C-alpha cells in the first residue's frame, strides 16, 4: 500500500519525462550536433559560412532530389547528434511508458491503492489573492481517468517516436522533429494531469502550439490545389486559427465559471456549481464545449483536421490517436461532473454535435481518394462517437463510455495512420514522389504483408467487426443511445457505423487489394502506381505489430467504466452478445463491409468510376462529398467577404475615425498655429491693445461683479 502510494506520488516523473527529453534535445544533442558539424572549407567567406549554417541548421545538407523540389530537404545520412536526439526521446519515453503501465496495472488489480478521488502529485500555489478570495494554483492530479489517458498518451507516443526513426530517416530537421514531438507529448500530459482549468488551459495552448509546429514541419512544401491539398504552413495556420475560434468560447466558459464560483479547481467546482443558476451553468458548459469542438475537430470547426494531414504521418498519428484531438474528449470527461450538474441541455448539445459530426465526416470519407484524408475524416467521425458517448452516458455511466472509445480508438487509429505512413514511405522510395492518392496504389498486400495485415486488423476494429476492440467500445455507445430511447441519435450512429465499415474497407481494398487479387480481391491485385514498393524497415513495422495487439484486445477491458467512475456498470460479454441491438449493429457493419467488398473487389474500378460520372445525380453527390460539403470553400467565402469585410470596415473606422481624431487634433493645432500666428503682427501697438484691452475687460468685469454682488 505504502509502496503503491509512493508509486503514484512520483507520477509527475511521467509528466516531466518528455519535457526532459525536449530540454536535452534542444540544449544538448542539437547543440552538440551543431558544434560537431564538419567545418566548411576555409575558402568560404564568413558570411557564406553563416548562410550554410542557417540552412542546414541540423547539421545536414540538402539532398539531391531534384525533381520534387517542392519537398522539404532530404539528407543522405543523419548525423550522430540527430540520431542521438531520437534515442534520447525514445529512451526517456520508454521509461515513462513503462512507469505509467505499472501504475495502471497496479491500480487496476489493486483498486484500493489509488484513492477514489485521486491524489495531487504536485501542488504549487502560484499566487493567492489576499483574503482567500481566490487562489491560482498549479496542481497536477492523478486519478484513474488521468491514468488511463496517460497510458494511451505514453504508449502511442513511444510507438510513434520509434516509428519516426524509420519514417523520418532522410528528412532534414530530424532532431527538431523529435524536439517538437516530445514537446507535444509533454503538452498533452499537462492536460492529462491538470486539476484545474488554469493548468488545462496552459496545456491546451501548448498542444495548439506544438501541433502548429508539427503540422507545419515541412515548411518548404507547397500547396497542391489539384488535390485540394494546402501547404503545410497554411495548414498549420488553419489548425491554429480554428482552435483559437473554439478557445474563445472555452475561455469565456472558464471565466463564467470562475466569476460565479471563485475557483478553477475541478474538484471544488463540482460542488460549487450546484449553487449556480442552472441556465447560466448550461451556457458556461456549452462554451467550454466550444473549446473541445475546436480541439477535437467537431463540426463546424473540423476543417483544420483534414488539412493537418499535410504534416508528417507520425504527427498525424499522434494528433489523431493520443494528443491533440483526444484533448477535447478528455477535457469533457474531466469536467463531466459539471455537465451532470448542468443537466440534459449541455449533454444534449455534446451528443448532437458529436452525432452530426460523426455522420457528416463519415459521408465525406466515403469518396475521398487521398489515403490520409480518409483517415482524417474517420477520426472526426469517431470523435463524434466519443462525444455521443459522453453526451448520452449520464451520471450512471460517467465519462467512461466516451473514454473507452477514446482508449480503443487511440490504438487502432494510431495503427491506421502508421500503416498509412508505412505505405507512403514505401511508395516514396519506390517512385521518388510523394504519393497519397489511393488511385495510384492497389495490390500492395503481398508486397507489404505486415503493413497490410495490421491495417486490416485496424480496419476491422474501427468498423466494429465482432470481437475486435472497436466493436465493444462503439457498439456500447450505439446501444446506449437506444437504451436512452434517443432514436435520432441511434439512427445516426447506427448509420454512421455502416458508413464507417464501408469507407474503411474501401480504403483498404484500394490500397492493398483490388479486383483480381487472391481471397476474392482482398489480397493483392493490380498495382496502379510506378516502381517496386516493398515492405518498410523494422523501425516502421514493429510499432504496427505492437499496435495491432491492443487494437484487438483493448476492448476486453470490461471494467473500464467502473475503473473510471466507481460504481458504473461493468460490461459483460454474454450480455453484449445476447442483446439484439448488438447484432443489429453487427449486421449494419457487415453490410457496410459487404457493399465495399462488392463495389471495389468485384467491380472494375474504371467501370465504377464511369458509372458514377455518367449519372448526374451521383456525380453531383460525389463532388459534393468529395469537397466535404464545400465547407472549406464556404468558410473561404465567409472569411473573404464577411470577416475581411468587417475588418475593412473596422480598418476604415480606425483610419478615418480614430486616426482622424488623432490627426485632426494635430491638424487643429497646426491650423491654429498657422492661422493664429497672424495675431502676432510684430507691431508693438497691437500687443499694447491686447494687454490694455485685457486689463480693461478684466477691470470692467471685476467691478461689475463686485458692484452687482455676484461674487459675494
Amino acid at each position: 500500500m505504502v509502496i503503491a502510494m509512493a508509486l503514484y506520488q512520483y507520477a509527475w516523473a511521467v509528466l516531466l519525462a518528455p519535457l526532459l527529453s525536449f530540454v536535452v534535445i534542444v540544449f544538448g544533442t542539437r547543440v552538440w550536433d551543431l558544434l560537431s558539424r564538419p567545418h566548411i572549407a576555409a575558402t568560404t567567406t564568413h558570411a557564406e559560412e553563416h548562410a550554410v549554417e542557417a540552412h542546414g541548421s541540423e547539421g545536414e545538407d540538402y539532398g539531391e532530389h531534384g525533381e520534387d523540389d517542392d519537398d522539404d530537404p532530404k539528407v543522405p545520412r543523419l548525423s550522430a547528434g540527430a540520431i542521438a536526439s531520437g534515442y534520447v526521446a525514445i529512451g526517456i519515453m520508454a521509461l515513462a511508458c513503462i512507469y505509467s503501465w505499472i501504475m495502471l496495472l497496479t491500480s487496476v488489480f489493486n483498486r484500493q491503492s489509488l484513492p477514489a478521488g485521486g491524489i495531487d502529485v504536485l501542488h504549487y500555489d502560484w499566487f493567492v489573492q489576499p483574503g482567500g478570495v481566490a487562489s491560482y494554483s498549479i496542481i497536477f492530479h492523478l486519478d484513474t481517468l488521468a491514468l488511463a489517458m496517460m497510458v494511451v498518451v505514453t504508449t502511442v507516443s513511444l510507438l510513434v517516436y520509434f516509428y519516426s526513426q524509420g519514417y523520418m530517416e532522410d528528412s532534414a530537421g530530424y532532431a527538431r522533429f523529435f524536439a517538437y514531438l516530445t514537446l507535444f507529448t509533454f503538452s498533452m500530459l499537462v492536460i492529462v494531469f491538470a486539476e484545474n482549468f488554469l493548468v488545462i488551459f496552459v496545456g491546451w495552448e501548448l498542444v495548439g502550439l506544438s501541433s502548429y509546429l508539427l503540422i507545419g514541419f515541412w515548411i518548404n512544401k507547397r500547396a497542391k490545389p489539384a488535390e485540394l491539398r494546402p501547404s503545410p504552413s497554411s495548414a498549420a495556420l488553419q489548425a491554429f486559427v480554428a482552435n483559437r475560434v473554439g478557445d474563445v468560447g472555452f475561455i469565456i466558459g472558464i471565466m463564467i465559471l470562475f466569476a460565479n464560483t471563485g475557483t478553477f479547481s475541478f474538484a471544488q467546482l463540482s460542488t460549487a456549481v450546484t449553487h449556480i443558476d442552472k441556465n447560466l451553468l448550461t451556457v458556461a458548459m456549452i462554451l467550454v464545449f466550444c473549446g473541445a469542438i475546436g480541439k477535437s475537430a467537431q463540426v463546424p470547426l473540423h476543417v483544420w483536421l483534414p488539412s493537418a494531414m499535410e504534416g508528417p504521418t507520425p504527427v498525424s498519428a499522434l494528433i489523431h490517436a493520443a494528443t491533440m484531438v483526444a484533448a477535447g474528449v478528455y477535457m469533457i470527461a474531466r469536467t463531466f461532473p459539471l455537465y451532470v450538474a448542468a443537466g440534459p441541455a449541455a449533454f444534449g448539445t455534446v451528443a448532437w454535435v458529436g452525432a452530426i459530426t460523426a455522420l457528416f465526416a463519415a459521408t465525406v470519407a466515403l469518396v475521398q481518394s487521398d489515403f490520409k484524408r480518409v483517415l482524417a475524416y474517420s477520426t472526426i467521425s469517431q470523435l463524434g462517437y466519443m462525444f455521443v458517448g459522453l453526451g448520452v452516458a449520464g451520471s450512471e455511466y460517467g465519462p467512461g463510455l466516451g473514454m473507452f472509445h477514446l482508449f480503443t480508438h487511440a490504438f487502432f487509429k494510431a495503427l491506421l495512420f502508421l500503416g498509412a505512413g508505412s505505405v507512403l514511405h514505401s511508395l516514396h522510395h519506390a517512385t521518388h514522389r510523394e504519393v497519397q492518392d489511393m488511385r495510384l496504389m492497389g495490390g500492395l498486400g503481398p508486397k507489404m504483408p505486415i503493413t497490410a495485415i495490421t491495417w486490416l486488423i485496424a480496419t476491422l476494429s474501427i468498423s466494429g467487426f465482432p470481437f475486435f476492440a472497436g466493436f465493444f467500445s462503439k457498439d456500447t455507445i450505439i446501444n446506449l443511445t437506444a437504451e436512452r430511447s434517443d432514436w435520432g441519435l441511434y439512427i445516426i450512429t447506427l448509420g454512421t457505423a455502416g458508413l464507417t465499415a464501408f469507407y474503411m474497407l474501401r480504403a483498404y481494398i484500394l490500397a492493398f487489394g483490388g479486383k483480381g487479387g487472391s481471397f476474392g480481391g482482398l489480397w493483392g491485385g493490380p498495382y496502379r502506381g510506378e516502381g517496386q514498393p516493398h515492405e518498410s524497415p523494422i523501425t516502421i513495422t514493429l510499432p504496427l505489430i505492437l499496435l495491432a495487439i491492443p487494437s484487438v484486445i483493448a476492448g476486453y477491458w470490461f471494467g473500464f467504466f467502473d475503473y473510471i467512475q466507481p460504481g458504473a456498470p461493468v460490461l459483460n460479454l454474454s450480455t453484449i452478445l445476447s442483446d439484439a441491438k448488438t447484432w443489429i449493429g453487427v449486421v449494419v457493419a457487415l453490410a457496410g463491409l459487404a457493399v465495399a467488398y462488392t463495389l471495389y473487389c468485384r467491380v472494375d474500378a474504371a467501370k465504377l468510376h464511369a458509372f458514377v460520372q455518367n449519372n448526374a445525380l451521383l456525380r453531383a453527390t460525389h463532388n459534393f462529398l468529395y469537397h466535404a460539403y464545400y465547407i472549406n470553400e464556404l468558410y473561404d467565402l465567409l472569411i473573404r467577404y464577411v470577416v475581411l469585410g468587417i475588418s475593412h470596415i473596422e480598418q476604415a473606422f480606425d483610419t478615418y475615425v480614430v486616426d482622424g481624431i488623432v490627426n485632426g487634433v494635430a491638424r487643429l493645432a497646426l491650423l491654429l498655429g498657422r492661422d493664429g500666428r497672424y495675431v502676432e503682427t510684430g507691431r508693438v501697438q497691437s500687443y499694447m491693445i491686447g494687454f490694455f484691452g485685457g486689463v480693461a475687460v478684466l477691470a470692467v468685469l471685476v467691478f461689475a461683479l463686485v458692484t452687482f454682488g455676484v461674487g459675494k
Partner: protein
Amino acid sequence: MDLATLIFWIIAVILVGSALMVVGLRNIVHSAVALILLFAMAAGIYVLLDAEFIAIVQILIYAGAVTILILFALMLTRITGQQSRTNPTNKQWWIALVICTLLGVSIIYAATTSPHAVATVGSDSGQLPAGINNVVRIGQLLYSPTQYSFVLPFEIASLVLLVAIIGAIVIGRED
C-alpha cells in the same frame, strides 16, 4: 473754495488740456511744446502737494532734459513728405479710444467707490518734523547711512542710469 483748490483746478485743466494737445496736435513739434507745458503743470501739482524737491526735479529733468532730447530726436528723424501732418494716428485709434475710456472709467469708479487706507483730506501740519523741509527730508531719505533710508535703491538707480547712458551710446552710435 479756498485758494489751493482754485489753483488745483486751474492747473488740472491746463494739465489735461496740454495732455490732449500732446496727443491731439497734428504737428509733432507742437506736441513736444505742449509736452513742456504738461511737465510744468505737473510740477505745479507737485508743489501743491508739498513736494517741492520733485517739482524742481520735474522741471529740470522732464521739462528740460527729456523734452530737449525729444526735440533733438524729432530733428534727426524728419518724416519726409508729411510736413503738415507729422503726428498721424494709425488705424487702431478708435480701439485705443474705447480701451482708454473703459480703463479710465474703471479706475475713476474704483477710486471714488473703494475705501482708502489713507485719509482723503490733507492736513498741512505734522507731516514733517519742525525745522526740516521737504528737500532736507528727501536728502536724509536718499543718502543717510544711519537712519531709515533708500540708499541702496538709490545706488542701484545710479547703476541703471549708467547702463542707460552706455546703452544709448552703443545703440545710437553710427557704425
